């Protein structure tokens, strides 16, 4: 095994933050079966959307979940909120196993785990007024706040920066950013302890994105709500998350506190993601940063590559990567809680290389032509 490997993984419980654990996910797996055949349909395969994910979220902590499109972030979020039933693994919320809890069994924790959705146009029922939309979680859970539900709705609207008098309006009368605020108000209606936000700003106009992120940050800090913030690039998450988990093709490849991930990343995929973020200043002295262009698509989750799933696009891949799956462990020199799944990790730096790494042969040929 690799020499810089020191500690075996503590099943995701190596949370460095001293806070108590709110949500713990172990070996979470979701395979969507594919049916085919005629005349009798049989299971012919499975989309391995999420495959053995370990995560922990502390009370009031915000965890960023990052990865390219199709790597299973939304599926993970939906599993945590139990919109989907996991194929395998365990979800523990506040010490209670909710992996296979039915709707009725879930009722007590339902109000504590809420979700903010990606598309502000499809996440609000077009036939309901804003008041009805925000009120309905309270109705479902039989919550009667002091002063009535309507008063609470007005407070929530004010909290998310909307005019409380817009209570009787319909979603189509609002802009995308305002709609997303309504979605936030709905998620807050039940005083949740954990909010899963699935790319809450990626459908919004650039000028609105920052406002909504700021709102979420304000909510997170003032109300002490834990967040799982899903995004597909590292820039948005940076301002928001205390810890970041990087996902690739259904697996967590690297997880750690914000500083470790942004300044001392070890996994080649994290390096690639970071190099695609122009805004992030890695360290003050390094003017020129490394350039890695990740070209090509994520391989199909139906037939993921053997061994390390990133090996088809990795510039450090060796034979071992094809045969042995790298475990998610703490590498020597990493801080506690900074786990990486790689046999041949990169140096913990993001400074420029002698030569750009270009991952796509076609792209490389193109650049040589131009130079």
């Amino acid at each position, binding site marked *: 095994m690799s020499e810089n490997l020191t500690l075996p993984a503590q099943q995701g419980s190596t949370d460095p933050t001293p806070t108590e654990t709110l949500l713990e996910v172990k070996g979470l797996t979701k395979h969507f079966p594919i049916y085919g055949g005629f005349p009798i349909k049989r299971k012919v395969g499975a989309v391995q959307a999420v495959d053995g994910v370990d995560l922990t979220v502390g009370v009031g902590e915000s965890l960023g979940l990052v990865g390219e499109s199709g790597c299973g972030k939304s599926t993970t979020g939906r599993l945590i909120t139990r*919109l989907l039933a996991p194929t395998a693994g365990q979800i523990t919320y506040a010490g209670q196993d909710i992996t296979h809890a039915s709707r009725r069994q879930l009722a007590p924790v339902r109000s504590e785990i809420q979700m903010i959705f990606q598309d502000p146009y499809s996440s609000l029922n077009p036939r309901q007024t804003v008041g009805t939309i925000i009120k309905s979680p309270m109705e479902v859970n039989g919550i009667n706040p002091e002063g009535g539900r309507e008063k609470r709705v007005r407070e929530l609207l004010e909290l998310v920066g909307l005019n409380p008098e817009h209570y009787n309006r319909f979603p189509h009368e609002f802009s995308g950013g305002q709609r997303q605020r309504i979605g936030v108000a709905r998620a807050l209606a039940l005083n949740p302890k954990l909010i899963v936000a699935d790319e809450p700003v990626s459908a919004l106009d650039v000028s609105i994105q920052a406002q909504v992120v700021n709102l979420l940050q304000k909510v997170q800090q003032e109300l002490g709500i834990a967040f799982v913030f899903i995004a597909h690039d590292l820039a948005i998450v940076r301002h928001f998350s205390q810890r970041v988990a990087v996902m690739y093709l259904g697996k967590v490849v690297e997880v750690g506190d914000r500083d470790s991930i942004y300044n001392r990343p070890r996994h080649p995929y994290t390096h690639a993601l970071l190099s695609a973020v122009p805004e992030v200043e890695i360290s003050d002295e390094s003017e020129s940063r490394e350039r890695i262009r990740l070209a090509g698509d994520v391989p199909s989750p139906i037939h993921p590559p053997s061994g390390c799933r990133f090996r088809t696009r990795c510039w450090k891949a060796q034979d071992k990567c094809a045969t042995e799956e790298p475990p998610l462990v703490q590498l020597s020199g990493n801080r506690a809680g900074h786990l990486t799944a790689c046999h041949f990790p990169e140096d913990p730096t993001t400074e420029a290389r002698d030569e750009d790494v270009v991952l796509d042969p076609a792209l490389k040929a193109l650049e040589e032509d131009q130079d």
Partner: protein
Amino acid sequence: MTSPTKAEDSGSAVALDPELAATSEVAKGAKKLEGRSPGQLMWQRFKRDRTGMFCAGVVIFYFVVALCAPLLTAISGTNPYTLYGQDPTYADQPVLDDFGLPLGYFGGVSADHWFGVEPQYGRDLFAMLVYGMRTSLLMALGVTTLLMLTGIIIGMVGGYFGGRTDYWLGRVTDFFLSFPQQLFFIAFMPVVTAFFVDPREETPTYFRALAILIVLWLLGWMGMARIVRSTVLSLREREFVEAAKVAGASPGRIVRKEILPNIVSPILIQFTYQLPSTILTIAFLSFAGVGFVEPTPDWGRLFAAGAKYAEQDPAFMFFPGVALVIFILCFNLLGDSVRDAFDPKSGR
């Protein structure tokens, strides 16, 4: 994808005061605080559509006429059953000549018989038409309501639960769709009737109505089921349904509060197309001789009779025919207008 430039922008915009930005976002909509629902918007668009409003007026007029048939015949002083040509009571006012054809012009139009009389029997066409419309419209309304309800329920169940339930409901739908409809209407009507009534006895009229209802219902719900199923299937995946699930809403509540209000428009649109086509089908059944029979006044039966008299008295077909063409045309135009009002993008 959030592009790097987007990310950069958001990074610099973080400095913006969120409160300030939010209030300015709100300010532009602060004038009128009572929102207008999609339904109200639809009604406003519909009101602006002249054709739609006109056709709606015509359609309503027909229904009023049909419902008020007894009143109208009281004014005209006729009824659809009396044989004015043969009844000795009316011997002093002859309506037919020696060959059994109507006296006077245009099928015997007169102050007593506004639309003329039927050859041979001398029955009053006006009374037969308004009563016939009544039979047809009420029947069509009944059939359409039944098959819409069935279609909605089956479509909702299949669409909402999906999986195996949806698969089997889909196969049942396919099975019923595979019947050649017109043929089966004709073939099935006597079977259904014979099933309940001794063939040697006279079939009561209410029973004929019931048989028509059953046959049209059994063979007509599939279109609605398919439309509702596909709509529900797409709604089920929408995030607001997931939001309701995350809040812990029961399937019943999700169907009632989240899904039903959103399938009202396709249902209404389908209704405005389904009703006229059902009227035509019922007329066709009577025309083919398996629907209503003598002496029940019925729109379709008037055409059957009209075809019989076409050579001697072509005028007999005129009033029922024109009435039907105008009605179906207006109803279909109304359907188009309703669809346009619900979905302005598909408009002309």
